[in-house]
């Protein structure tokens, strides 16, 4: 969906390097939210469409105002609600109990700890691409689209022509797969775009941006409707 998370090219956010920005997190609770989110995923306690696609559903104003791990906290709660693991209101009631001085419960389960760490240490390489429609060196155009659901096709490359740089592997289209559908795996390409084609003439010497795109997002550059002749 074309939400606030799709940030490439936006203005107005200020400096990148600021005091404290070098650390992965600032407070202990942020580390615990990170770990808890991974853990409930590994343990199958959350419903679709997964943390990443869920965070994109945050109302744009909230997404932009939230800190990084507040967004993770939000998606953890939504995922747990969707699976029925927790019910709306339960977190708020626990907040009141803790605020009232009730101690936090502790529970030890060494098997769960081992399971989680083993899962995170495990790699799962994608399968090699089979027959690919495009080859390195081919010019391709990113399709125009405005998908209502999850997508990994950033706005700033749509409609732009680039050159296929690599054929990475085959993967299921996330636009469908995050909702539990099982489309056939399709080639994923690295497509290189010239800065002039993305942004026009800029103040910096030309550069390139390579974006990883599923075959469904791409078409031959000649495809599509010709420009309207009557447009002035």
């Amino acid at each position, binding site marked *: 969906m074309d939400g606030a998370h799709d940030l490439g090219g936006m203005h107005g956010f200020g400096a990148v390097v600021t005091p404290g920005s070098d650390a992965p997190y600032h407070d202990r609770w942020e580390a615990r939210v990170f770990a*808890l989110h991974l853990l409930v995923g590994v343990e199958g306690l959350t419903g679709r469409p997964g943390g990443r696609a869920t965070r994109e559903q945050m109302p744009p104003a909230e997404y932009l105002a939230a800190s990084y791990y507040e967004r993770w906290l939000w998606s953890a709660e939504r995922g747990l609600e969707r699976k029925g693991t927790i019910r709306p209101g339960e977190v708020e009631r626990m907040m009141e109990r803790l605020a009232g001085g009730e101690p936090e419960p502790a529970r030890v389960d060494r098997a769960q700890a081992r399971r989680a760490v083993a899962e995170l240490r495990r790699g799962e390489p994608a399968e090699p691409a089979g027959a690919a429609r495009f080859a390195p060196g081919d010019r391709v155009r990113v399709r125009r689209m405005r998908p209502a659901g999850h997508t990994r096709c950033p706005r700033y490359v749509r409609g732009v022509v680039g050159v296929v740089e690599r054929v990475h592997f085959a993967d299921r289209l996330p636009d469908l797969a995050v909702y539990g559908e099982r489309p056939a795996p399709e080639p994923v390409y690295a497509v290189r775009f010239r800065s002039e084609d993305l942004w026009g003439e800029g103040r910096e010497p030309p550069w390139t941006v390579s974006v990883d795109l599923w075959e469904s997002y791409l078409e031959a550059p000649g495809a599509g409707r010709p420009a309207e002749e009557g447009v002035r």
Partner: protein
Amino acid sequence: MSQDHAPGAHHPRPAADAELRARALEALLVSKGLVATDAVDAVIELYEHEVGPHNGARVVARAWVDPAYRERLLADGTSAVTELGIAGAEGDNLVAVANTPTVHNVIVCTLCSCYPWPLLGLPPAWYKSLPYRARVVAEPRAVLGEFGLELPDDVEVRVWDSSAEVRYLVVPQRPAGTEGWDEQRLATLVTRDCMVGTAVPRVPAAAAP
């Protein structure tokens, strides 16, 4: 001067009740018997102590001293890092991209915060920040300048937006003045930012012959 209050600076700090809310969610799951506090601790430990940029630095140092390894790394990143015992979530489809005298690579994820965890650990706050994700694809040299990295005009900047399940690792150039250094010593020059592309390795003045 702090840039926190510069016009347009956007680095939201957590709301006051976020901490309480986070504690409550964990307490709720623990009280339901679904989550163990030591399992949460174990995941944190994994990324604070075991997995971090020292892994990526080992890979780069090996590539600097062993041309055959470098070739394997650039051809098939995942297999090459597995040779060194490095694997795991968010690193299973690794592509290593090499800096040269004419090319400088930098990585980003404009849509979220994809990052090669097994090689670099968890990303710094700036990597996940709105300004980095918004700007590095649209004005890379201005962003690199904030890190103190100025590149000659004839160097081509290549930005890699990790929009699929590929995770990128930048292989920086081996700096001059390190002839005869062993892998372990070379690895000390390879910082996290060098492998993201917002820095290049520098030989400390004291270490120069």
